[in-house]
């Protein structure tokens, strides 16, 4: 079945903020004892008033600029009224596009690839509710719920797209690009648990729209859409009408299920938040931000290719992992050899950390720092150690954190350039590999085999150029 239309509503926390959107409680509520990161304001105690976090307005404006949105001269906040136990005031302070006022960004577009753009309908700044834990399993079965307000009031950027996606793959591509953009802007660490959430609406053949809520990570979005397309297709094939409804994603069972009927009665009674006067951004606000905005992924890509002479392939691998790209550039500051360092990082280095990729902060917690990699690459380039040795050294310094030069000294693994020592090695290989020697005399290609044996004999420490010369010399000698 064709003609699938998918739209997204993404919530990204501004994880870089020190404080919440309307009070001075910590922006990072993670790993805290429940209900310890709260104050009068974010608990909605009677008489408290919201104080807007100016930095949050800057961050949401940057997001709007990066997603090609128009940013209005003045913005205001609205109350969205609904009852839910995780919402301390029983209304959410958010934005709303109505009566001449708009949210922080409208009418944008974001390039998916060379041939397709996704339209962004709006971007708005709002507060996150608290969190409910259902003690005895899911929300439909548990008899009691625990509420933690540590998260209540954390700044969220809501990004709403038009239903421009036609398959889950496009959605995944979009979410990847969006994550990268948010990370480059320094707004959201998308790998932090719960920092990005996505609601999806799916309709088929112009039929009713089904909304799927509660998808708590970008990874699950593709699965939820696939499930929903399958579900709707099977209904369609059996001539059952697809209801317009809200469903939830169960990330344990990997299915969507129908929400409580009450949640579908949407009358949020929006009205302007009287406690936050209209905010005039001013003429220079957007242009100033534009001038000082961090580099976006596509700008960085261009720079890597042009300034560092990296291949497009290498640049992509680095930029798709922002922390690795940052690590790369820190290393360059110590030792400027972009191509060699980039190649080392995306091959030997990356393969070492790949196993540990769930650890979001792997680069910060790692014992290996840019200084280590710089020194290591410098030794390769200075012909002090071989590439094979470099890999071994990397393993050692990963564990111990000592400097590569120290590790090389400790293990005595400098390259062997001394001709006498190498000659001994060549001779013993010639002794043991007699048939290979004969081959090599007739077929020049087979020399590489002998070189490999010499390298192995020296534990990879032989200077390959010298070793090669010695092998050639010996082959050409009549007594060999």
């Amino acid at each position, binding site marked *: 079945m064709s003609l699938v239309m998918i739209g997204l509503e993404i919530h990204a926390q501004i994880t870089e903020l020190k404080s919440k959107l309307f009070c001075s409680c910590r922006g990072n509520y993670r790993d805290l004892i429940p209900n310890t990161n709260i104050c*009068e304001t974010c608990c909605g*105690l*009677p008489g408290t008033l919201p104080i807007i976090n100016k930095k949050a307005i800057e961050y949401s404006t940057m997001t709007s600029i990066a997603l090609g949105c128009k940013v209005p001269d003045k913005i205001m906040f609205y109350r969205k009224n609904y009852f839910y136990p995780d919402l301390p*005031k029983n209304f959410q302070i958010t934005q709303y596009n109505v009566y001449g006022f708009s949210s922080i960004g409208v009418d944008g577009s974001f390039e998916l690839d060379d041939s397709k753009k996704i339209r962004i309908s709006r971007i708005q700044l709002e507060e996150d509710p608290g969190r409910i834990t259902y003690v005895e399993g899911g929300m439909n079965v548990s008899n009691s719920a625990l509420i933690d307000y540590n998260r209540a009031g954390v700044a969220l950027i809501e990004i709403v797209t038009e239903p421009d996606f036609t398959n889950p793959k496009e959605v995944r591509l979009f979410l990847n690009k969006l994550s990268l953009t948010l990370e480059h802007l320094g707004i959201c660490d998308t790998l932090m648990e719960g920092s990005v959430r996505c609601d999806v609406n799916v309709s088929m053949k112009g039929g009713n729209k089904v909304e799927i809520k509660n998808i708590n990570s970008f990874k699950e979005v593709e699965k939820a859409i696939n499930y929903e397309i399958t579900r709707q297709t099977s209904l369609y094939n059996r001539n059952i009408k697809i209801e317009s409804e809200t469903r939830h994603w169960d990330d344990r069972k990997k299915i969507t299920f129908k929400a409580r009927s009450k949640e579908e009665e949407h009358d949020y009674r929006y009205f302007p938040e009287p*406690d936050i006067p209209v905010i005039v951004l001013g003429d220079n606000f957007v242009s100033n931000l534009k001038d000082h905005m961090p580099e976006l992924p596509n700008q960085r890509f261009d720079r890597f290719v042009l300034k560092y002479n990296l291949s497009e392939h290498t640049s992509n691998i680095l930029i798709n992992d922002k922390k690795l790209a940052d690590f790369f550039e820190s290393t360059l500051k110590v030792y400027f050899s972009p191509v060699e360092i980039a190649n080392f990082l995306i091959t030997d280095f990356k393969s070492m950390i790949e196993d540990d990729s769930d650890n979001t902060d792997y680069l910060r917690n790692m014992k290996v720092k840019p200084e280590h990699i710089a020194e290591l690459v410098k030794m390769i380039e200075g012909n002090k150690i071989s590439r094979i040795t470099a890999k071994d050294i990397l393993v050692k310094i990963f564990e111990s954190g000592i400097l590569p030069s120290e590790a090389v000294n400790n293990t005595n693994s400098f390259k062997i350039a001394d001709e006498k020592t190498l000659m001994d090695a060549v001779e013993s290989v010639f002794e043991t590999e007699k048939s290979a020697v004969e081959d090599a005399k007739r077929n020049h290609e087979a020399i590489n085999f002998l070189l490999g044996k010499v390298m192995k004999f020296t534990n990879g420490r032989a200077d390959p150029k010298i070793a090669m010369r010695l092998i050639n010399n010996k082959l050409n000698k009549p007594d060999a």
Partner: protein
Amino acid sequence: MPKLQDLQAHEVVQGIKEGLFTAEEYVSSVINRIEDVESKVRSFITLDSERALTSAKLIDRKFKEKEDIGQLGGVTVGIKDNISSKDIRTTCASKILEDYFPSYDATVIRHLKDNGAIILGKLNLDEFGMGSTTEYSRYHPTHNPWNLDYVPGGSSGGCGAAVATGECTVSLGSDTGGSIRCPASFCSVVGLKPTYGRISRYGLISYANSLEQIGPICRSVKDIVMILNIISGKDIRDNTSMSSSPITINNKLDKFDIAIIKELIDGSDLEVRKTVYSASEKFKEIGCICNEISIKNLHYALPSYYTLASAEASSNLARYDNIRYGFDLPIAEYKWDTYFSNVRKNFGEEVKRRILIGSYVLSSGYYSKYYLKARRLRSLLKLELLKLFKKYDLLIGPTMPILPFKFGEKIDDPIKMYLVDINTVLANLAGIPAITLPIGFSNGLPIGLQIMAAPFEEQKLIDVSNALENTINIQRRPSLI
């Protein structure tokens, strides 16, 4: 010398500073007064005499040690029970906050305490400030000290009655549509609703955020100035607050252009009308010019006010779900599907009525028909009033169109009750300052004069009020007490 409990705030501070009496003696005399009259008047919801006496002793010790006792050292303040006070129960006269002990002080209370004032307790009001008689308090009604069968006005009825009887030196009320001025007028004391933004609302438990202000209710204009200057100012905790210059008591009066609002005079009881006219004659005697003018859009004021106030209230009061604070409820009552409706039954009838009205005017399909229209009418009225202030310094009229009335007289007809607010809601809709002054009595029932000025022109209000207060000689203390 008058009895200690009859002193005005500035006299109290002076007396303590000069060593004429101690703060403890003064506070004890006020507590004695409360013991004498409280059973008749019932101004307080929560009285905190013990802590008040402790604070008084602290001030006496400071005085002995030659430390500064503060500009309000020893002054006792009654606080309307919708202003958050740390560790003192704050109920909004509602059962839904029966056991609520705030963890923080409102900014105004912090200012008072910082200046040596003593918080005496929390004063009665209509539940959440919704009412004009204090009959809607969910604890008990407050009685008018001038005639105990009559209402004291509202919603800050406890403030008006307590100040009039000397149960506190001064009080802080809040005014959303007349809640300071109505009881001040009915109890024959001075009440000021400041310009919107002059005083931080942080800690004022919201009824209608865009309309309300905290303000002083006192026995003299001089005391009003004293309190006003201490509680005014920009507060980083309130986005809508602004800084302003301090007010002074001047003995010289400018020749003000004063306009009497014709519709407000015409709509008032005969006795009220007569007294207001005679007050306007006094203005002429002290050198002002008085003219009668009309407000074209006046008839929009009440519908606009009740639509907007109810809309904001319906959202503000949504948080009272008893999950985080509130009142005692057995755990068995916490059932997911019935919980909210069950808990929210605890609101009184008038509060429920306004939540319903407010939810209705904000609901989709009715938003532009009611809420948005009300906002436009509000702008229209504001523009008209601000235009008048280009021509006139002050607008005057009766604070209340009628004399205080008996308990139960209007409680069965909400519309009748809403209509008594017609004179006062103007200042809230326009965000302008308005003061009420006692100007006389009819059959022993007080009459107040309302004076309004342009935004942040409180100095004009005070100048003219001070001059008028000095010329009008009326009974200052209810004889029933």
